[in-house]
């Protein structure tokens, strides 16, 4: 607004938007720059789609191995084309619109799920800096000065897809699934944000490129080690919950909710959700690698002098692969959380712990010995908090109509026994 109305405004070009980061825009915009950007977008987009295809195959294969099955092995070599076949099948299925659905929102929701998943990948650095002709550019689609905030923003937008899908279906199970999902995502976003802040504190920048650069020296400079492992663990937990992947996949718990928020979806719209889910897994693995494992940085960098362009990319892909495997492993090995456990873990454990660690890191950044002092303070606060939780729990028990979820002893039926006691308790209106 100001630049339009204020005649004294300084010259602003779109190039100035990213001038603090991307070297591509240093000399302004011309057709070559446009071309490079377009190529980057196209490459990233298609690579992401292909990798989703492979990821689905990979997941099915690995899980099969872990469960002593063979898994897909018909379409293509080692069943590689199985996903493609499934996709084609889905594409030709009938696209159902439930009668009570809100058709506009119902159709909108899959895209709201997919687009944030795609966009997050744009800020992930997949390689180093290359120079082609007079143009130097980074191997990442975009490098905005607020890169990591962009990731957070997009992951909070992803909630909409899930939420609206469940609501617009006009059906009970999807609604329950979506309410669960959005509550879960919002709950873990706080912990996620605070771990990201620890990374930002030590890197001194919000730009993903700068975060990667600050870890570039050798593997002991990776944030994983610099921040003392814990933030990484917190981040992994939070991100897994954010992705609603096992063991946090309550949102699509088949035994309770049929299929979760996308129960009513079919055909290509269902495929879009599926795509978004796996794409999110991949991009979030890439974000983990960026934040904690030096991104495209190798453990001993540049030991093959001729491979300066490709080696970082290879390192990046290898690291991402490790995390993809870990996610599959989670799914094969871990049982699903109960909903109250999930919320307890998020609010009562993860958020205080991330906050405590954030304070310690901040104090250490300011002055080492302060760190020690704050650490003592954090431990004391943790003890007090635990005490408060314990007290709160006993008070709950005293006043609860029902015992806490974990300790319920279910009578077969209240009406069966027919005793006066039960009748009296029924009068109190507590759900039995």
């Amino acid at each position: 607004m100001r630049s339009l109305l204020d005649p004294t405004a300084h010259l602003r070009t779109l190039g100035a938007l990213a001038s603090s980061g991307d070297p591509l825009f240093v000399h302004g915009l011309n057709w070559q720059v446009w071309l490079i950007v377009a190529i980057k977008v196209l490459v990233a987009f298609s690579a992401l789609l292909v990798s989703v295809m492979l990821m689905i195959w990979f997941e099915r294969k690995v899980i099969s191995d872990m469960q002593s099955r063979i898994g897909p092995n018909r379409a293509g070599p080692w069943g590689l084309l199985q996903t493609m076949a499934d996709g084609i099948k889905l594409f030709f299925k009938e696209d159902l619109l439930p009668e009570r659905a809100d058709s506009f929102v119902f159709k909108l929701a899959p895209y709201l799920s997919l687009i944030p998943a795609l966009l997050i990948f744009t800020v992930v650095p997949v390689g180093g800096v290359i120079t082609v002709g007079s143009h130097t550019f980074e191997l990442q689609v975009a490098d905005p000065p607020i890169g990591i905030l962009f990731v957070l923003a997009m992951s909070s937008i992803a909630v909409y897809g899930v939420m609206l899908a469940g609501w617009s279906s006009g059906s009970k199970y999807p609604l329950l699934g979506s309410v669960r999902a959005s509550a879960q995502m919002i709950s873990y976003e706080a912990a996620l944000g605070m771990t990201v802040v620890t990374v930002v504190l030590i890197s001194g920048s919000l730009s993903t490129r700068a975060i990667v650069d600050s870890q570039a020296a050798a593997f002991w400079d990776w944030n994983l080690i610099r921040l003392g492992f814990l933030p990484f663990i917190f981040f992994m937990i939070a991100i897994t919950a954010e992705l609603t992947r096992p063991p946090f996949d309550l949102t699509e718990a088949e035994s309770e909710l049929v299929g979760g928020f996308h129960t009513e979806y079919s055909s290509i719209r269902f495929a879009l959700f599926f795509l978004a889910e796996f794409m999110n897994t991949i991009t979030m693995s890439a974000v983990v690698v960026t934040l904690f494992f030096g991104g495209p940085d190798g453990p001993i960098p540049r030991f093959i002098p001729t491979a300066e362009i490709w080696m970082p990319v290879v390192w990046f892909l290898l690291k991402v692969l490790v995390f993809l495997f870990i996610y599959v492993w989670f799914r094969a090995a871990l049982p699903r959380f109960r909903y109250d456990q999930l919320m307890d873990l998020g609010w009562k454990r993860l958020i205080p712990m991330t906050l405590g660690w954030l304070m310690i890191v901040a104090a250490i950044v300011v002055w080492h010995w302060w760190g020690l002092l704050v650490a003592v303070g954090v431990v004391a606060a943790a003890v007090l908090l635990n005490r408060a939780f314990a007290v709160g729990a006993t008070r709950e028990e005293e006043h609860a109509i029902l015992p806490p979820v974990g300790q319920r002893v279910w009578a077969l039926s209240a009406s069966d026994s027919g005793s006066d006691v039960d009748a009296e308790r029924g009068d109190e209106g507590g759900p039995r």
Partner: protein
Amino acid sequence: MRVALLIASASLHGGIAMPHIAYLAILPEIVMLGGAILLLAVASLVRSALNVTVITVSTLVISLASLAAALWQFFDVQSHGAYTTLDHAVVLDGFSVLVTVLVASAMALTALVGDGYQRREGLAGPEFNVLAMVSATGAMLMGEANDLVIVFLGLEILSIALYVLAAFNRRRAESGEAALKYFLLGGFSSAIFVYGIALTYGATGTTNLTQIADFLAKNVVVSDGLLLAGLTLLLVGFAFKVAAVPFHMWTPDVYQGSPTPITGFMSAVAKAAGFAALIRVFVSSFGVLRVDWQPIIYALAVVTLLVGAVLALIQTDIKRMLAYSSINHAGFVLLGLEAAGALGKVGARGVSSALYYLFAYTFMAIGSFAIVSVLGGRGDAAHEISNYKGLGKRQPFLALAFAVLLLSQAGAPFTTGFWAKLQVVAAAVDANSVPLAVIAMVSAAVAAFFYLRVVLLMYSPKKFVSDQEGDRLENLDASGDAVASTSAREPLWSGSGRQTALVNELNATLLLESSPETIEVPDEREGDVVNVPVLAVVAIGICIAVTVGFGVFPAPLADFAHKASLLFMP
């Protein structure tokens, strides 16, 4: 400062120079907020629910500590002069000290009144007092803010806590309704206020009050639409908070629906804080624009005075009546503000008179609402004015106390109310606003009518009670018996024997005047005699002591207000 330097020197990127912090300037807030949070934390750490006594005592200690800090500030300001700190975000001057003293005292009194209320209504937990204390912190912030952002934050802290407090007794439907009304309208007015800040920032390039004044002193704003729009929106935000007509719509409903001790707190603290910030912003920052804002204040004062007084006449609920009377009082304070727009000594006198009025009003309002709270009975519902019929016979001390407070509100001589009204009217006359002063006098006369109506009702003999009314009173008598029988279990103040004598003593010492016939022990209960908690008696006693004491010897308080009126000016 030493600590700040340490951080600056050790930080990674060359560092930023932290502003100097004079902790004395924010000590009362730190004590109040820190105490509140500590109380909350302790309550969550002990296994059994905290006793109401423990909570009340700790609240009292915290409030009094805050008050002591404010007095320390007062002596510091007297000896070293006013100053700003925290990069000019906060100012410590006589004005802020007086507001802090007011708020801290109001908090202590509310804790005293709230004790009995919480016991009677069976409200457990420290949240009642904690919310009130945080609200008080917000009020203090508003009093000493030197930045519009701080004013806004203080306003929000004050208001959000009050929204919740208004809804605190969730067994009463009116309480929820009041809170919802207050919240919606309050949120709306806050939005308007922020818009005002934004426009002011756009016009002056800063939110700091000192810098705004500086900017306006050095520059002539030719196209000043933006500035005036900002000013107006700020005024609307404040006018809502202090319940000036036409932004008063929420007041009767909210005052009626809120728990009565909170109504007292709200009427005193929100009004004091709102006016404090209003005066500081308008006089010290926008003093240059006085030609623009004085007429608006003039008009506001006129309608506020008249509407408050006239509508109070037709109320049947004592809390609603007091709500309209508080609107009327707001009009009087606006009178002082209008005078404060004048230049030089006259303006200072306006500020001083407004402060004096706020001080007097705080104690009158809390005292009145304390009595209403006590008389409200279990459920906090018996607030019909007709219930007060014959109170002078049933509970002479309570009736006398109420009469004194109401007369003070009406402006009877030998009370602070009289001096307060005298001062603002005199200030208005000094500022050449004679018509306004006349209107104020008229409204005071109208207001005296509805105050006296209640007083007369209290002392009206029982024979005026119609037969139906008599039957009702009989029934109430029975229920009064029931209350008395339960009083053995509850540590409440019952009206019998030895205890009544104690009340007499208390009242006799606290009231400087006490007529012999009222010291009589009441014979048999004739109406619904309520139990008067001893702490409420103390609170009412203090309010009356202040009202009458400074009414008889007005000099010290006037001196205090005068010292406080010397606003910190850049």
